[in-house]
Every structure is written in C-alpha cells, then in structure tokens.
C-alpha cells in the first residue's frame, strides 16, 4: 500500500544555503509526525515543500501516487501557516467560504459553517477578521485550512495564540481527522503538546533528521533532555 505522504531525498537549496537536505520519510493514513527543531532548522521550508508552495531542488514529495507540487496533490493538503493567510477586510465566513470554493466544494456554505463551528468561532463568523482577536484569527485560519477535509494537514505551530478552548477545539479536530485517515505533521516548540498527538517524533537540525522514531513509549522528560543536548 502506498503511503499517504512520502518524501524521498527531499531537498531544497536557497542560493548557497541548504535549508532542507535529503529528507526521507513516509506517513500512512492516521499517522501524525511531531516535528521539533531549533529556529532555522528547516521545518518551515519542509512544510512549504510538502504543501506544494515551493519546488524541491532534489528528491520528490508525494501525496498518494501524485507528486507535489502538482495540482491534484495540492488539493489534498491543508496548510496551517504561522501567518494567518486571511484577508482582514473580509469576514471569517467569507474567508473560509472562499477557500472552500477554491477547492471546488459543492456544499461550500455548509462546509464553511461546519469548519467554523468545529473551531468554536461560529458566533463571530460575520465579523471582519481585522476586528477579531489574535486567538480568534488563528481559529479562523485553521478553519480555512481544513474546510475541504484535507487528507494531509501540515500545521506550523498551530497552537500559537490559542486559549484553552481554542486549543481543545484544535486538538479535537486533529484527532478527528486522524481517526478519519488523514496524515498530520505538526511543527511545534512544545514537546508535550506535540507528543500528545503524535505517532512519530522527529528532530530536524540543519535541514536533516537528527532523530526520527515512533512516539509510543517515549519518556517526555528524557526526550526533552536529549532534545536540549541535540540542539545546544
């Protein structure tokens, strides 16, 4: 069975700088990779490669059998970036609805409502995004990213700015998507948060995996100590 998400010697150079260097890994449906690493390790670049935003300079990335950044592969990805990717003059509903239409959803309106309610932001849906607090904007940003029920969710520090209610909503959403067979990659600086959801854990350093293993059975404190040593 082909994995849902597959990277083979995936690499990306910017001028002389190797941001991502020969990454090889794969995720089956229902698996979640927690990606840790210091600033500048290449985590964001890796996500951008897997979202089809940029082309690799070496290697390939695939969703199912389709190569990224082809259109068919892009359609199955949902990217939660650390910028909101929203139009602040439009309402939350309009932003999410636009994303739904771009993905070709026939029931765009219903999907929009579902996504907004899942992130518990339904009651502020018709407010322009610029009038929402940072935490609520983050919720709308997440709703926008998942409205089309993507098979692959790439989340770059998704918990940033979320309060308890928002965090709970996000965790619930990610767990539900995982159960439905999606593959997730969550980039975070919070080891505990990341490991809570993850089936796999990896530490990225200078564009390469310094560690990659199954998350089950990892002791949090030991992992944290080893992580600190690795990135020191």
């Amino acid at each position, binding site marked *: 069975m082909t994995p849902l998400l597959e990277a083979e010697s995936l690499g990306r150079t910017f001028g002389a700088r190797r941001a991502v260097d020969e990454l090889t890994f794969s995720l089956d449906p229902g698996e979640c990779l927690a990606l840790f690493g210091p600033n500048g390790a290449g985590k964001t670049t890796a996500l951008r490669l897997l979202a*089809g935003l940029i082309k690799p300079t070496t290697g390939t990335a695939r969703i199912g059998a389709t190569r990224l950044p082809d*259109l068919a592969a892009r359609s199955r990805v949902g*990217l939660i970036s650390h*910028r909101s*990717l*929203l139009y602040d003059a439009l309402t939350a509903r309009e932003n999410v609805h636009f994303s739904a239409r771009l993905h*070709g959803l026939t029931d765009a309106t219903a999907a929009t409502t579902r996504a907004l309610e899942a992130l518990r932001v339904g009651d502020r849906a018709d407010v322009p995004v610029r009038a929402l607090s940072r935490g609520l904007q983050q919720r709308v940003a997440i709703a926008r990213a998942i409205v089309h029920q993507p098979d692959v969710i790439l989340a770059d520090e998704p918990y940033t700015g979320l309060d308890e209610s928002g965090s709970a909503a996000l965790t619930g959403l990610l767990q539900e998507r995982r159960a439905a067979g999606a593959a997730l990659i969550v980039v975070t600086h919070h080891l505990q948060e990341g490991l809570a959801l993850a089936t796999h854990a990896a530490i990225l350093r200078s564009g390469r995996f310094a560690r990659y293993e199954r998350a089950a059975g990892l002791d949090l404190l030991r992992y944290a100590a080893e992580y600190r040593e690795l990135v020191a």
Partner: protein
Amino acid sequence: MTHPGLIAASWLIARKDLAIEFRTRSAFLSALILSLLAIVIFYFAWDPTAIGAADLAPGVLWVTFTFSGLLAMHRSFGVERQDGAIEALLTAPIPREAIFLGKAFANLLFVLGVQAIALPAVAIFYNLPVGHALAPLAVVMVLAAIGLVSVGTLLGGLTANTRLGELLLPVLALPFFVPVVMPAAQVTAHLLAGRPIAEAFAWIRILLAFDLVFVYLCTLVFPLTLDD
C-alpha cells in the same frame, strides 16, 4: 469534487478582490478623487483661447486614467502580502495563471469604473460634448484599459515584493503604457473632433495587437514571478 478550472478560479479570485475593494472602498475613492482633481487642475492650467476643449481633453483623460489605474494595480497584490494570503492561493488546486487573470479582471473593472466617471466629468467641466462619439469612445476605453491592466497587474505583482514598490511600479509600467495611451489618446482626439472611427483604424489595430500580445505574454509569464 472537481477543482475549479482556469475561468472559474479566475472569476472566484476577481470576485474576492472586488469584495475586498468594495468593503474598504479606499483605493477606488482615492483613484476617483485623484482623477477629478487632475481634471480640475488641468482646467486651471489651460488657456481656452489657445487650445480647444476637444484638444485638451484626450491628454487629460488618458493621463488621468493611467495614474489612477496605477493606484489599483499597486494595491492588487498588496492585499495578498499583508497576512501571507497568497500562500493560500498557491496551495489551492487552481492554476497559477488564475491568480493573474482574476486580479487583472478585477483591476479592469476598477479602471473602467474610474473611466465611467472621469469621462462625464470632463464633458461637464470642460463643456465638451461627447455624446456623438460615446459608443466608439467606449470601445477605445475598454481596449486601452485591457492593455494597461494586463501589464500593470503583472508589474504590480513584481513590485509588491520589492522595496519602494509604490515608486517602482510607475517607473516600470509607464514605458509599457505608451503604446496604449498614445493610440487611445489619438483616437479619442479624433472622435471628439467628430471624425468617424474608421479613419483611426491603424491606431485601433495597434491597441488590439498590444492587447492580444500582452494579455497572453503576461499570463504566460506570471507563474515565473512567484517564489518557486
């Protein structure tokens, strides 16, 4: 679930841009006010005994359209940069060209909107009858607007990511506008003088050729301006 094709995606993006502009209205109003002010200022710089209104008007109209159009085109990509929204467009399953075509179409409506108000303004302020030439004038204005908007939107995309974007756009765009504005102004002068449009076909041909070449070229070249 089928992905939107080129036309459908372009239309979605155009509608989105128009919705944003309609919500804030600031760029359109600024462009309008700029046009009206220019029309007024040119009036005061004008010696009506030396130059007839029909001779002054084409220059005023086309200079005005050009500069207010530049306002639109600069904003076009600015709205995507603000919170990185362009990344959402780039990860969506739509052809990249749709981003260009959608924005260009929204800018076209913007420029046509300014034209629709500036032309009557000139007719009123300069006491210049334009009714006799309204239909051919409209044709010229649309053709020229298409030319301005195709190059302007593309260059707007280029300059949105640079320092001095606002200054840089006119510097880059104006040479490209000359083969549009020159024919447009010449035909406008021609029409306002009461001559039939058939005599100005050579100019119309240049406009048409420019539109065909540059709409195609800019659409083709647009994906290259994205960070890939």
